[in-house]
């Protein structure tokens, strides 16, 4: 009985609520802001997570060397391996939430799982995903062209410059919100450009046999297939088509590509002729774009061993978005969680220096994402294995596209 009473008294004296330090992640004494990133550094998605982290770190290394945020705050990156496992992500969020000012996340399910806690804790995070669902979430700071925009621009390019008028257009998409976003973009393009989607096939991320769905696309006599998927499945899907003597033009969303594809002796000849990648930014090393020029300079100084990699570029871009938020919060002289939310509301238009299209931030209902996409063709003679066919294009249908409120 006495034990019970003592324990009850102890418990009543030690509640900590959901309160946090005033400025978690900010050390005034050393003028250091700590930022976190939860990314897969092991397992099957390591191929994305590791270069992304390297790009993220490289950008902040450059920022620190150039004087830091607001010319006075150094940035320290706290990275954790979420292994692309949702419970691990949730636990790691609890681990880093009091250590960092702002957080970057990788993976749509992981953002979904952590978002309720972000709202409770008032934390701002950057979702490493181009899912348009994030646009209206005040706790999230998306960047880059959403998946819908990639297909709207891609369809417009195919019809007007790729000889696609009158051709049979189809879709193949992975199950889940990412695939849904791709399908939504292609349906919007069909409505705006006046074509019909002749066939649509879905598959699961764990599928390894693609002959049946690809065979059905062949039966539908598709001339072009808009592909929403992951790097690991692009080769097997295109390869399944080759075995069936079905070689349409594949137009892939940004995550369908991996630099490893440009090194496949078997697939590369097919990809060079029958694959186009729809993503953000210029060719690797195109220094006519100021952000690419800066990235190449930063690589030379801080990560000379880095090879061309679109996910490195994605991490660098993610750090640019975070930098804009940190700069705004520093300008407002409020590095608290409430300060970052306010900075997000006041951020306005942010330029990504040609590495991706500009974004207009602000209150969720006023946010306007990037509307530009670059069409790439595999070309092994180019750094990164990609040649820009149409750089930073923005179709009228993409500009007119309305995202859900």
């Amino acid at each position, binding site marked *: 009985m006495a034990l019970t009473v003592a324990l009850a008294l102890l418990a009543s004296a*030690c509640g900590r609520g959901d309160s946090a330090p005033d400025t978690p992640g900010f050390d005034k004494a050393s003028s250091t802001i700590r930022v976190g990133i939860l990314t897969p550094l*092991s397992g099957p998605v390591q191929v994305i997570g590791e270069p992304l982290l390297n790009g993220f770190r490289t950008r902040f290394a450059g920022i620190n060397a150039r004087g830091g945020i607001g010319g006075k705050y150094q940035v320290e990156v706290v990275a954790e391996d979420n292994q692309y496992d*949702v419970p691990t992500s949730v636990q790691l969020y609890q681990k880093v939430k009091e250590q960092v000012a702002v957080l970057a996340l990788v993976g749509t399910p992981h953002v979904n799982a952590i978002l309720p*806690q972000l709202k409770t804790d008032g934390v701002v995070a950057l979702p490493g995903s181009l899912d348009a669902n994030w646009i209206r979430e005040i706790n999230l700071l998306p960047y880059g062209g959403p998946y819908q925009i990639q297909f709207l621009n891609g369809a417009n390019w195919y019809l007007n410059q790729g000889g696609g008028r009158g051709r049979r257009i189809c879709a193949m998409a992975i199950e889940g919100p990412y695939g849904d976003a791709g399908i939504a973009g292609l349906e919007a393009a069909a409505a705006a450009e006046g074509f019909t989607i002749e066939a649509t096939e879905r598959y*699961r991320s764990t599928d390894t046999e693609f002959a049946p769905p690809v065979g059905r696309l062949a039966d539908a006599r598709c001339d072009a297939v808009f592909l929403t998927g992951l790097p690991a499945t692009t080769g097997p899907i295109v390869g399944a088509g080759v075995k069936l003597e079905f070689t349409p033009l594949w137009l892939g969303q940004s995550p369908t590509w991996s630099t490893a594809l440009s090194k496949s002796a078997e697939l590369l000849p097919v990809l060079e002729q029958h694959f186009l990648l729809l993503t953000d930014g210029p060719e690797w090393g195109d220094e006519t774009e100021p952000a690419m020029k800066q990235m190449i300079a930063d690589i030379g100084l801080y990560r000379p061993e880095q090879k061309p990699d679109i996910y490195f570029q994605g991490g660098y871009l993610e750090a640019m978005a975070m930098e804009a938020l940190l700069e705004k919060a520093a300008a407002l002289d409020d590095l608290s969680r409430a300060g970052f939310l306010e900075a997000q509301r006041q951020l306005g238009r942010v330029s990504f220096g040609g590495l991706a299209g500009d974004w207009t931030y602000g209150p969720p209902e006023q946010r306007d994402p990037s509307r530009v996409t670059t069409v790439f063709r595999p070309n092994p003679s180019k750094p990164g294995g990609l040649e820009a066919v149409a750089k930073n294009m923005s179709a009228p249908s993409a500009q007119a596209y309305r995202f859900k409120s």
Partner: protein
Amino acid sequence: MTRRRLVAAVLAVAFVVLPLAVGDFGLSVLTFAGIFAVGAIGLDLAVGHAGQISLGHGFFMGVGAYAAVNLGAEAGLGLPVWLSGAAVAGGALGALVGLCALRLRGAYLAIVTVGVVFVGLYVWNNVPAISGGAAGAGGEAPAVLGPLDFNHLRVAGQSYAREQAWFWLVWALVAAAAWLAANLVRSRTGRAWQAVHDNELAASAVGVDVGRAKVSAFAVAGALGAVAGALYFGYVQYVGPDEWSLFLSVQFLAIVIVGGSGRLAGPVVGAVVLGGAPRLVEELSPHLPIGGLGLTVANLNRLLFGLLVVCFVAYAPRGLAGGWDDLQRRRRWGRRPLADAPMVRAAVADEPTIDDKEQL
């Protein structure tokens, strides 16, 4: 104070003090361990006590999670409703799977339970009305129990972090599940399970309704697995279909094996060890020479997981809880020949037979 009361007092102190002394990260790890412990207690009743192999426990966890989505987050019904709704749904589906156990055993039964996982994955991915489809489902399931709201806990003017509140809720339910399991094992049903576990033919010969025992074991296992899934959703507030994979079911079985099957404490110890060890290795990794071995921390954890399971099955099939019991017996019996001790004789009788190992 008896030893049992001392253990209970230590656990009570830990229950109250841990959320006050441990940070949110540690509490999150322990809360996940508690959720898995609830499910593993259920699986152990089927595997450890009734001798029925199941590789489909992840399916029941999914059933419970989506029951919580629909009854809690969508319909806004209270914690007792969505938890008991999950238990009823899991129990009913568990009983259905149990019907298969009437005709099958060993590897054939294992394959049927694997099939259940894949049926579940199809439903979770393709029936959005139940699961939200491949996009998953999110929302806040009300967690109010009397005057306590575990999502926003406030007691006597003192507010508590969600991690603290959910630790208390989950571990209170671990205690409830363990109490339920202990009583079931001692009941007529539990004795029937043990008889079926030891020898189906002999059990039948002495009047045990073997079919009823098997179906009830799967039903209780399914119900507790579903409660674990409901707690998972209540805590994380989001679930996607890929979380209920075959690997999850394998993890449950590993928890039971490492903790010690057929022992009340086994699944709880297994859940804490297998849930906490990866995070512990991560914390210690700066001091470990894993880089020189060409390993990442996550890969080291996977390697350790596999080695643990292999070592326990091969060399310590009674698991950690069984090993602890052995140590206690040795301590109490001192230098006297262990084989003479009645308790050791009983333990030897409990030692899994070759058939049992094959089933595992």
